[in-house]
C-alpha cells in the first residue's frame, strides 16, 4: 500500500465483507484493525478478503504486534523528545533574556515596599549580578521601566503560547472532566504569576495607590516553563530506556527464513513459513522459527532467551527456538510452532502483560495521586492567606510568590512513576536472564519469600534417568560388562519404560551393537524377558527374577547398597542364572548444589517435596545439600504441605514443572515453573525459569528483592520530596531560618524530582547474575 487510494480500497473491501462491523486501515503502519462478528466470519476469511484486492495480508502475531506497537511508541516518544527539547532550549534562551531585562525593574522596585530578600536565588541576583550588569550594560538601566515591562510581557506571552501551550490546553480539558494533574498545577501557577504581572504592567497606579508594589514575574514564568520542559524532555528520554529489554526481544525476530521447497532453497518471509516446512540453517544465522532438528549438528547460542551463557549442542530430534543464534554447524529442521504460538512471541506477550500489571505496594501511591492536585491547590490557597495576614512587610508580594512556589514545586509525577518504571526495568532485566516474572504482584511476593519448596525430578535432578553403576557377577553367565549391557539393552529396546530408555541410551553411547529379541514378554511393574541369540534373558526387579526361579542372593548386597544411595537396581539373569545388576538413577544437576547453598545464604529455607520414596529422596537431598525432606507425597500432599508452611507464617515459593506440579505452583505464594522452553504459558506459575536450573531461582529472588528496594526508595523519595518541598515552598522555614524558595527554584526541584525516580529505576539495568 503506497497511497490513500489503496488504503480506501482495502478498507472498503473489508467493510463490505459479511460479518464486519467496522474496519480501519492505517496507511502509515500498514495494518488494519477490524471489528467483526466471530459467528459470521473468521480471521482467515478476512485475510483472504484483503488478498483478493491484490494486496498482501497476514495476521499479526503477538510479537509483531508488540514490535509495531513498540515502534509506534518509540516514534511518538522520539517526536515528543525532540519537540520538548526544542521548546526547552528556546524558552531557556528567552528566560535568560527576560532575566537580564527584568534586573533594572528589580532595582527600580527595590527602593519601594520590599522587605529583606529571603530567597537565596534572588539574593544572589541582587548582590552579584546587578552590579556586574550595571557596569557592562549601563544603557539597560536607561530604558524606561514601563517600556521594559511591556517588552517582557510580549516575550512571556510568546513563550506561553508557543512552548507552554500544552500545559494550559491540557489543564483546561482536564478541568472539564473534573480532574486535575501536573498540567493543572503548572498552568495555575504560571498563569497566576503572569496575570498578576500583566495587571501590574497595565495598571501600576492601581497597585501603588493601595500600597502594593507593582512587581512583575515575567522572567519567573518563562524560566519555570523552560525548566519543566527540560525536565519533561529528560524524563521522556529516560522512560524510553525502561522498555529497552522488550525492544531487544522484539527485535530478535528474523525477517526471512530459508526454506526447502521442491528441492530448492528459497528465502521467504517468516510470516509465510508453514508448519512442517524444512528450514535450512547455516552457521552464524539467527534461527527464524521454532522447530525440531531433522539432520545435522550444531551449537546454538540461546543466551538471549534463557540467559544460559554456554552454547547448547543440538542434534537430530532436539528443539531449536526462533530468535536464537546458530553458531557452528549447518542444520536442517522442521518448523513447528509459528506466529503467536512461538516461544519468542509467548515471551514477548508474557512480558507485555507483566509490564502492564501493578504491584500492591503502589496502592498507597495511587490513592495519594488521586487526591494530590486538589489538595496542593488548597495548600497553595492557605499559603497565600497565611502570608497575606501574617507577613510583616509586602504581604501581597510574598503571599503571591509563596503560593506560586507551592503550586510549582509539587510533583505528582514522581509518585506515579515510582513503581511502574521499576516493574518495567526489572521484568525486562529478568527476561534477559531467562527469568520471566509475570507481574508486579509476583515480583513483590518473590521479594518477601522465606521458604523455597522444590520438586525433585527435573528440578533438582536432571529429570532423565541414567545408568550409574554396572555390577557383574564374577564367573556368571555374562562374560563382561559389554556382554551384560548388550543383552540387557537389546531386551529393553522393546520397552518404553523410562528405565529401559536409560539402559538403551547408555549402551548406544558406548557403541554397543544391539541384537534381535524373540518371544519378548513384559510383566507390568516388574520387568521384561525374551530370548536373545538363543539364550533366555530376564531383566527387572527382584520379584521378577524370583518368579522365574532365579536365585538372586549373590546380587542382594550390591542391590541394597545401591538402593541406599537412592538408585534403582535392575537385576539381570541370563540362561536362568544371575548375571549382574544395572543401577539407574536420576543424577542431580551440576548446578543444584551451588544454587541451593546460595539460597541458604539469602536466608531462605529449602524444602524438598517429592513423590519419590524416602530413601531416594534423602539420598538426593544429601547430595544437593537440602536438610528438609518431605517424601512420598502425591500432588495433593504437596499442596497440603505448602498450606501447612503458609499457616506457619512462611512466604513460600514452589519450584517445579508446570504440568505435574501445577496445583502446588498455584498454592504457593510464588509458583516458579522450570521451563523447558516449551511451556512458557504455564498458567499456574508466577515466574517461569527459561534456563532449567536452580540458579535461576536465586536470580529471581535476588532481582525481586533488589526491585522492591528500588520501589521503596522511589516511593520514599517521591513522598518525602513533596512532604518536605511543599512546606519549604510555603515558607515553613522562613520564621526560623529566613529561607524562602522562589518559584524558579521550585521549578528546578520539580523538574528533576521525576527524572531522578526514573533514573533510579534504570539502575536496575545494572543487575548482574551471580553465576
Amino acid at each position, binding site marked *: 500500500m503506497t497511497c490513500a487510494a489503496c488504503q480506501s480500497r482495502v478498507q472498503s473491501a473489508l467493510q463490505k465483507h459479511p460479518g464486519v462491523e467496522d474496519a480501519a486501515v492505517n496507511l502509515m503502519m500498514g495494518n488494519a484493525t477490524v471489528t467483526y462478528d466471530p459467528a459470521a466470519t473468521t480471521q482467515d476469511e478476512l485475510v483472504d478478503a484483503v488478498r483478493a484486492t491484490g494486496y498482501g495480508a497476514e495476521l499479526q502475531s503477538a510479537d509483531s504486534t508488540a514490535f509495531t506497537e513498540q515502534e509506534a*511508541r518509540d516514534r511518538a516518544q522520539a517526536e515528543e523528545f525532540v519537540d520538548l527539547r526544542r521548546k526547552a532550549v528556546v524558552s531557556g534562551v528567552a528566560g535568560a533574556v527576560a532575566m537580564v531585562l527584568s534586573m533594572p525593574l528589580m532595582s527600580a522596585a527595590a527602593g519601594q515596599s520590599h522587605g529583606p530578600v529571603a530567597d537565596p536565588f534572588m539574593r544572589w541576583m541582587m548582590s552579584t549580578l546587578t552590579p556586574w550588569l550595571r557596569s557592562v550594560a549601563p544603557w539597560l538601566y536607561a530604558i524606561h521601566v514601563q517600556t521594559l515591562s511591556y517588552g517582557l510581557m510580549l516575550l512571556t506571552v510568546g513563550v506561553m503560547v508557543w512552548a507552554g501551550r500544552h500545559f494550559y490546553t491540557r489543564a483546561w480539558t482536564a478541568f472539564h472532566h473534573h480532574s486535575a494533574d501536573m498540567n493543572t498545577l503548572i498552568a495555575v501557577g504560571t498563569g497566576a504569576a503572569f496575570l498578576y504581572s500583566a495587571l501590574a504592567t497595565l495598571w501600576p497606579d492601581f497597585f501603588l495607590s493601595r500600597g502594593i508594589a507593582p512587581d512583575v514575574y515575567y522572567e519567573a514564568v518563562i524560566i519555570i516553563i523552560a525548566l519543566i520542559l527540560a525536565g519533561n524532555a529528560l524524563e521522556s528520554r529516560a522512560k524510553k530506556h525502561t522498555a529497552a529489554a522488550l525492544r531487544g526481544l522484539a527485535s530478535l525476530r528474523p525477517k526471512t527464513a530459508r526454506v526447502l521447497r521442491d528441492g530448492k532453497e528459497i528465502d521467504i518471509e517468516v510470516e509465510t513459513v508453514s508448519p512442517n516446512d524444512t528450514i535450512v540453517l547455516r552457521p552464524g544465522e539467527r534461527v527464524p522459527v521454532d522447530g525440531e532438528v531433522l539432520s545435522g549438528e550444531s551449537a546454538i547460542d540461546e543466551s538471549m532467551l534463557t540467559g544460559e551463557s554456554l552454547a547448547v549442542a543440538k542434534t537430530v530430534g532436539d528443539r531449536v527456538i526462533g530468535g536464537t543464534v546458530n553458531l557452528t554447524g549447518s542444520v536442517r529442521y522442521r518448523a513447528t510452532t509459528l506466529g503467536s504460538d512461538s516461544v519468542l512471541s509467548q515471551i514477548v506477550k508474557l512480558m507485555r502483560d507483566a509490564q502492564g500489571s501493578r504491584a500492591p505496594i503502589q496502592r498507597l501511591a495511587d490513592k495519594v*495521586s488521586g487526591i494530590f492536585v486538589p489538595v496542593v491547590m488548597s495548600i497553595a490557597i492557605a499559603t497565600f492567606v497565611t502570608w497575606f495576614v501574617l507577613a510583616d512587610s509586602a504581604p501581597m508580594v510574598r503571599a503571591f510568590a509563596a503560593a506560586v512556589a507551592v503550586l510549582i514545586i509539587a510533583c505528582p509525577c514522581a509518585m*506515579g512513576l515510582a513503581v511502574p518504571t521499576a516493574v518495567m526495568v526489572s521484568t525486562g532485566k529478568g527476561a534477559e536472564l531467562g527469568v520471566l516474572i509475570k507481574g508486579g504482584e509476583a515480583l513483590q511476593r518473590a521479594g518477601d519469600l522465606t521458604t523455597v519448596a522444590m520438586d525433585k525430578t527435573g528440578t533438582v535432578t536432571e529429570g532423565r534417568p541414567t545408568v550409574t553403576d554396572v555390577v557383574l557377577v564374577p564367573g556368571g553367565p555374562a562374560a563382561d560388562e559389554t556382554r551384560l549391557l548388550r543383552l540387557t539393552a537389546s531386551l529393553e529396546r522393546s520397552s518404553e519404560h523410562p528405565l529401559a530408555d536409560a539402559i538403551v541410551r547408555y549402551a548406544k553411547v558406548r557403541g554397543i551393537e544391539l541384537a534381535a529379541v524373540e518371544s519378548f514378554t513384559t510383566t507390568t511393574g516388574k520387568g521384561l524377558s525374551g530370548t536373545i541369540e538363543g539364550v533366555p534373558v530376564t531383566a527387572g526387579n527382584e520379584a521378577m527374577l524370583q518368579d522365574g526361579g532365579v536365585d538372586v542372593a549373590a546380587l542382594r548386597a550390591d542391590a541394597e547398597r545401591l538402593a541406599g544411595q537412592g538408585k534403582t537396581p535392575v537385576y539381570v539373569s541370563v540362561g536362568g542364572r544371575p548375571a549382574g545388576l544395572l543401577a539407574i538413577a536420576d543424577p542431580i544437576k551440576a548446578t543444584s548444589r551451588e544454587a541451593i547453598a546460595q539460597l541458604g545464604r539469602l536466608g531462605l529455607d529449602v524444602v524438598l517435596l517429592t513423590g519419590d520414596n524416602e530413601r531416594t529422596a534423602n539420598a538426593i537431598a544429601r547430595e544437593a545439600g537440602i536438610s528438609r525432606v518431605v517424601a512420598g507425597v502425591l500432588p495433593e500432599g504437596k499442596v497440603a504441605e505448602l498450606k501447612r508452611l503458609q499457616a506457619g507464617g512462611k512466604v513460600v515459593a514452589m519450584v517445579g514443572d508446570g504440568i505435574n506440579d501445577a496445583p502446588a505452583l498455584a498454592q504457593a505464594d510464588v509458583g516458579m515453573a522450570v521451563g523447558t522452553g516449551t511451556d512458557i504459558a504455564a498458567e499456574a506459575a508466577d515466574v517461569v525459569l527459561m534456563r532449567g536450573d536452580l540458579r535461576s531461582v536465586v536470580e529471581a529472588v535476588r532481582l525481586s528483592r533488589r526491585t522492591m528496594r528500588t520501589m521503596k526508595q522511589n516511593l520514599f523519595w517521591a513522598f518525602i520530596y513533596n512532604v518536605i518541598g511543599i512546606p519549604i515552598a510555603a515558607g515553613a522555614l522562613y520564621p526560623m531560618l529566613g529561607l524562602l524558595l522562589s518559584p524558579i527554584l521550585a521549578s528546578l526541584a520539580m523538574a528533576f524530582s521525576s527524572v531522578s525516580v526514573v533514573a533510579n529505576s534504570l539502575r536496575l539495568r545494572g543487575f548482574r547474575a551471580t553465576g
Partner: protein
Amino acid sequence: MTTSEWIVIAGGLASIAWVNWYFFMAGRGAATVQGSEIVITVDNGYSPATIRALAGAPLRLVFDRKDTSSCSEEVVFPDFGVRKFLPTGERTTIEITPPKPGKYEFMCGMSMLRGTLIAE
C-alpha cells in the same frame, strides 16, 4: 486585622471549599454509559468516566485518544492486568470481562486520570 485581611481569609476558605467540591464531588456521578461496546474519548480525561456493564459478559472498550499528553498515553485496568498504549488519533480496543459485580477502576499510566467501570 484589616478589612482586606478578612476578605482574603474568607475568599481563601471559599476557594478551598470550591476546589475540593469541584474536583472531588461535582465530577462524580456524571455521564455514565451502558452497553457491551463503549467508546471512551481520551482527552486529558475520560469521557464518559463512569461506565456500566454486565458482570460476566465480554465488554469492548474503545479508547479514542485525542490528546498528545504523555500523561494519558497509557490506560491501565489493574484488576484485569491490562496496561495498554494508546496512540494519539487512533482507536484502541480493550476487551475485558468483569468477573463479578463490583466497581473496577481504570486510570492513566500515572493514576492521575481516573474512570470507573461498574459491573452489575
